[in-house]
C-alpha cells in the first residue's frame, strides 16, 4: 500500500438529471468515494455544472482548503473548462482539478445494470483521484507573435486572403512560382453563374495586390526552407534568376522572335507555341519576358564553348536587358502565420488515352477551351478545332474525365466541372448558333446559389444536349472524331461524330505539393490534398499550428468557394493577431536531462517538429510553442527520458493499476 496521501481532496458527483443518476447509485458513489485515501469531502448534486453546483465546488474549496478536486460528471470535452475556471476563480490552480467521466464512459453504456455501473463509476473516480494526487500546478505558456503573414501561392485564394490581411494592417508576403500572380483563374474566360468577365475581376485584384503598401510579392519563387513555429516562422524563399532586367526592358518583343526554341505554351494549354524566352500571360500587366532556364539552349549545350552557345536573345536586345549570367536569389522572411494557397493542376489528358488525350489534337482539356473563349487568348476568343482551325459544328463535353473513377483514376468529384462545362457549352452555343453541344455527365451537381437555374437554362432554352452516361472511347475515323457512349436513361448505346472533344479533367493538387507539405510539416491525404484539422469545425487550419489552408490545395472547389475559404483563413489569422502574444497549453512533453541519451528517436517521430537536438549537450529538447502533447515521443523514447506533464507514466501506471486490480464489489 502506498503511503497515506497528505493532500486534501474533494469529490463532486453529478447526477446529470437521470443521465447518470438513472444508472449509477450516486449516494453509494459518494459513500465509497468518501472512504478513499485523501478524500476529505464528497457530495452529489443534480446538476453540478449549474451555477449553484459550481458554487458548491467553489465554497468547498475555500472552506475545506482543498488542494485537489475530482468532478465526476460528463466528458471533459463538455465541462472541464467550466470547472477549471470555477476552481481558478477561488485560487485553486486549475490544473489540480480533473474530470472523471462517468456519463459517456459509464452510465450511458450500462443503462440496465446499476450495481455494475456504480462499481465502475467508483473505480473511475478512484483512478482520477490517483491522477490528481500527482498533478502539478501549472501556468499557461506565452509565445512571441510576429504579426506578418506569408502566403504561398498567388492564385485567387492567395490574392484574396493577402488583400484582406493587408487591409487589416498586417504585412503580407506572397510567394508565387510563376512569373505573374493570378494562377489558373487568369486562364479562365468568364465566371458562372453570371458570365462575369474574369480578366476584369481578377485584374482589379491583381492591381490592388501589386499597389498595396503592405504586400510584397515574390514571383518566380518558391519556399525553400521553413523553420520555426507558430508566431515565429522563418521562411527562406528561393527566386529563379531574373535573366531579363525589368528596368531596362522596353517590351519590344525582339527577343521573343529571335529565340530558336519552340515549345507548347503552358498558359495557353498548348494551343499556341512559345520560345525559351516568352511572355507568360499576354494579357497580364507585366509584359516583361521571362527566360526559362530549363528550356533554353544556352544552358543545355554543355559541350559547347562560351562563344558557340546560343545567345540569340541577348544579341537581339538593343537595350542590353538580358544577362544570361544572372544568379538565383535567396531571401528570408519572418512571419507569424502561413497560408498554403498552393492550388491545383488539371490531371493530364494523357492519362486517358482511350479518349485520345495527348494524341488527338482536337481532344482538349477544359482549360484549353477556356483559353479559346478568352478574347485575349490564342484564338482571339473563337472556338476552333485545334487541328485545322475550322469552326466545330458539334462539340462533345465529357464531364468526370478522370474524376469519380476509383478503380483507375481519382475517386473524388472535382466539384467545379458540372458548372463550368454548362458555362462553356452555353458560351459555345452563343458563338456557333448552328452548332450542337453534347454533354456527357454522370450526375449534375449544381448545389449553390443560382447554379441549378443556370444549368436548366442551358438545357431548356439553349438546347444543350445532356447525355447521361460515361464515354467509352474517342477515336479518329476518316478525319472526324467518333465517340462511343451510352444513354443510361434509355439504355441505348450511342456512336456519334464530333468535331471537338472537351475533357473536364479532374483537379489534382499542384505538382510538388508533397515535398512542400513535408517542408511545412502539413499532413496531406491519400490524393495529396492538404488536410484540415477538422472538416466541420476547423476547416482552414492545417495540422501545424500557424499554417492555414485556402483554395484547391485543400480540395477541388470553384472560385466562389475558394474565395470564401480564403477570407475565412484571413479572418482566422486576424483573430490570432488580435492578441499581443500567444498562449499555449502547458500540458506538453518534458525531458529529463539526466536520462536523455540524445539518440534522436523523438525527433524522427514527432509529427509537429517540436523536438530539437541541442547539439552542445546532445540532449533532445522540447519546443514548448510547437508541442501539442500528443505523447508520440513518450512512447518512442527507449530510455523513458520524456514525460507528458501531468500525464506521467507513473500517474498512468497507477490509473491502469486501479482499473486492473481486483475490484471490490461495492453493492
Amino acid at each position, binding site marked *: 500500500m502506498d503511503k497515506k496521501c497528505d493532500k486534501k481532496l474533494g469529490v463532486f458527483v453529478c447526477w446529470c438529471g437521470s443521465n447518470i443518476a438513472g444508472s449509477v447509485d450516486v449516494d453509494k458513489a459518494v459513500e465509497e468515494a468518501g472512504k478513499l485515501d485523501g478524500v476529505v469531502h464528497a457530495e452529489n448534486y443534480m446538476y453540478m455544472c449549474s451555477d449553484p453546483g459550481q458554487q458548491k465546488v467553489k465554497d468547498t474549496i475555500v472552506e475545506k482548503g482543498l488542494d485537489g478536486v475530482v468532478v465526476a460528471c460528463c466528458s471533459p470535452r463538455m465541462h472541464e473548462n467550466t470547472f477549471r475556471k470555477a476552481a481558478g476563480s477561488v485560487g485553486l490552480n486549475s490544473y489540480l482539478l480533473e474530470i472523471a467521466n462517468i456519463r459517456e464512459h459509464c452510465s450511458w453504456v450500462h443503462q440496465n445494470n446499476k450495481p455494475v455501473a456504480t462499481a465502475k463509476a467508483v473505480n473511475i473516480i478512484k483512478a482520477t483521484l490517483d491522477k490528481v494526487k500527482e498533478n502539478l500546478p501549472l501556468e499557461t505558456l506565452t509565445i512571441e507573435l510576429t504579426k506578418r503573414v506569408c502566403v504561398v501561392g498567388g492564385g485567387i485564394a492567395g490574392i484574396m486572403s493577402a488583400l484582406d490581411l493587408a487591409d487589416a494592417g498586417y504585412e503580407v508576403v506572397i510567394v508565387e512560382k510563376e512569373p505573374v500572380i493570378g494562377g489558373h483563374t487568369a486562364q479562365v474566360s468568364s465566371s458562372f453563374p453570371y458570365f462575369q468577365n474574369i480578366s476584369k475581376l481578377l485584374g482589379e485584384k491583381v492591381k490592388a495586390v501589386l499597389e498595396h503598401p503592405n504586400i510584397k510579392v515574390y514571383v518566380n519563387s518558391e519556399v525553400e526552407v521553413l523553420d520555426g513555429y507558430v508566431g515565429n516562422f522563418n521562411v527562406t524563399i528561393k527566386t529563379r534568376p531574373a535573366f531579363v532586367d525589368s528596368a531596362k526592358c522596353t517590351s519590344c518583343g525582339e527577343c521573343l522572335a529571335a529565340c530558336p526554341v519552340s515549345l507548347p505554351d503552358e498558359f495557353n494549354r498548348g494551343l499556341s507555341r512559345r520560345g525559351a524566352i516568352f511572355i507568360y500571360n499576354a494579357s497580364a500587366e507585366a509584359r516583361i519576358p521571362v527566360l526559362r532556364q530549363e528550356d533554353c539552349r544556352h544552358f543545355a549545350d554543355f559541350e559547347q564553348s562560351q562563344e558557340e552557345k546560343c545567345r540569340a536573345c541577348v544579341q537581339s536586345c538593343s537595350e542590353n536587358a538580358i544577362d544570361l549570367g544572372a544568379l538565383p536569389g535567396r531571401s528570408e522572411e519572418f512571419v507569424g502565420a502561413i497560408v498554403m494557397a498552393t492550388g491545383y493542376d488539371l490531371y493530364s489528358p494523357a492519362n*486517358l*488515352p482511350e479518349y485520345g488525350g495527348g494524341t488527338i489534337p482536337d481532344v482538349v482539356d477544359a482549360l484549353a477551351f477556356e483559353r479559346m473563349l478568352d478574347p485575349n487568348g490564342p484564338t482571339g476568343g473563337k472556338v476552333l478545332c485545334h487541328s485545322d482551325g475550322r469552326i466545330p459544328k458539334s462539340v462533345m463535353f465529357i464531364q468526370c474525365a478522370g474524376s469519380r473513377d476509383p*478503380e*483507375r483514376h481519382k475517386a473524388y468529384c472535382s466539384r467545379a466541372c458540372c458548372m463550368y462545362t454548362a458555362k462553356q457549352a452555353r458560351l459555345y452555343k452563343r458563338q456557333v448558333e448552328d452548332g450542337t453541344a453534347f454533354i456527357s455527365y454522370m450526375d449534375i451537381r449544381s448545389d449553390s446559389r443560382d447554379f441549378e437555374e443556370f444549368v436548366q437554362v442551358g438545357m431548356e432554352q439553349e438546347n444543350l444536349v445532356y447525355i447521361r452516361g460515361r464515354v467509352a*472511347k474517342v477515336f479518329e*475515323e476518316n478525319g472526324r472524331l467518333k465517340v462511343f457512349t451510352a444513354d443510361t436513361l434509355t439504355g441505348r448505346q450511342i456512336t456519334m461524330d464530333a468535331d471537338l472533344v472537351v475533357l473536364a479533367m479532374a483537379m489534382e493538387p499542384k505538382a510538388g505539393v508533397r515535398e512542400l507539405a513535408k517542408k511545412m510539416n502539413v499532413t496531406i491525404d491519400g490524393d495529396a490534398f492538404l488536410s484540415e484539422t477538422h472538416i466541420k469545425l476547423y476547416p482552414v487550419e492545417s495540422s501545424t499550428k500557424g499554417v492555414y489552408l485556402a483554395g484547391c490545395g485543400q480540395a477541388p472547389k470553384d472560385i466562389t468557394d475558394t474565395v470564401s475559404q480564403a477570407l475565412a483563413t484571413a479572418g482566422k489569422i486576424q483573430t490570432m493577431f488580435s492578441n499581443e502574444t500567444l498562449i499555449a497549453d502547458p500540458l506538453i512533453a518534458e525531458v529529463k536531462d539526466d536520462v536523455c541519451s540524445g539518440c534522436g528517436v523523438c525527433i524522427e517521430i514527432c509529427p509537429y517538429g517540436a523536438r530539437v537536438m541541442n547539439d552542445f549537450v546532445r540532449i533532445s529538447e522540447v519546443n514548448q510553442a510547437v508541442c501539442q502533447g500528443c505523447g508520440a515521443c513518450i512512447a518512442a523514447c527507449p530510455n523513458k527520458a520524456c514525460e507528458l506533464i501531468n500525464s506521467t507514466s507513473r500517474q498512468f501506471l497507477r490509473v491502469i493499476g486501479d482499473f486492473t486490480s481486483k475490484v471490490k464489489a461495492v453493492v
Partner: protein
Amino acid sequence: MRYSYFPGCTLYTKAKKLDDAGRECSLKLGFELDELPDWTCCGATFPLVNDQHMLMSGPTRILADTKDRGDDKLVALCSVCYNVLKRTNHVMLNDEERRAKITDFIERDYHGEVEVLHYLQVLRDEIGFDALKEKVVKPLEGLKVACYYGCLLLRPVKEIGLDRMENPTIFEDFIRALGAEPVDFPFKIECCGAFQTVNSMATATRCSREILSNAVQNGADLVITTCPLCQFNLDDRQPEILKEDPAFTTIPVFYFTQLLAVALGLDSGNLGFERNFINPLELLQEKGLV
C-alpha cells in the same frame, strides 16, 4: 527456364494451332512448357456469384497440383483459362474465408502460392521483348497488324493487372519486337460477341463485323488474338458478314503464337493455317515471309 503449363480443352481441339505454335516457339526461345499432368477443365467461366464456390474447386485443384509438383509459376495461353486461373488465385491469396471453404472441400493445402502467367507475360517480363527481338530470324517487315485483345486477357484490371484495361499496349510492343507494324486500332478491346455466338449468332456477327471493318479501315493486313473464342468469332463469322455485305473486305485472323512462329522461322507447314477460314498463307507469301 521451365514453367508448368496449362493448355486447357480448346487448345487440344479447335485451337490446336495456338498450342502447337506456342510450344514450338518456347523451345526456340529457350524456355520449357512442362504440361501439368492430369489437368482438368478450368471451369471456363469465373463464378460471379460470391458464394458459388463449387466452380472454383476445379481451378483451385489445378493451382494446388502446380504447387505440389514444386512449381511456383503456371503459364496459360488461352485468355479464358488465364482469366479463370488468375482470378481464382486472387481469391486464394486474398479471401481467407472463401479459400478455407474451397480448400477444405477439395482437401488440399493451398494459399495462392502459384503465380499465374500468360504466355505474353512470359515474353514481356521473363524473356524481355528486347531479347525476343534478337531471336527473330525473319523480321515481319511491312506487315501491318491489328492487335485484338478482347476482354478476358485484361479485365477486371484489379485482379488481372496484365496491362491497362482501356488502352493496353503489350500486344503492340510484342508486334514491334517481331519487326511488324501495329496499326492504330480503336476497336481493340471492343466485345467480339463472346458466347452470344451460341444463342444469337447475329449479335456475334455484328460485333465481329464492326471490329474487322475498323481493322481494315486502319490499314491492317491481319488481326491477331490470344483467345480461341475471339478467334472463332472474328474468323468464322466472316462468311455471314460476306453474305450480308458482298463488299466487305475479308481479313485473316489468327493467333499471336502463329505469327511468332513465322518470325522465329519455324516451318509454316506445321502452323495449321489451313484451319483458318481466311487463310493467311497467301498474304504471308506475298510479303515474302513464308
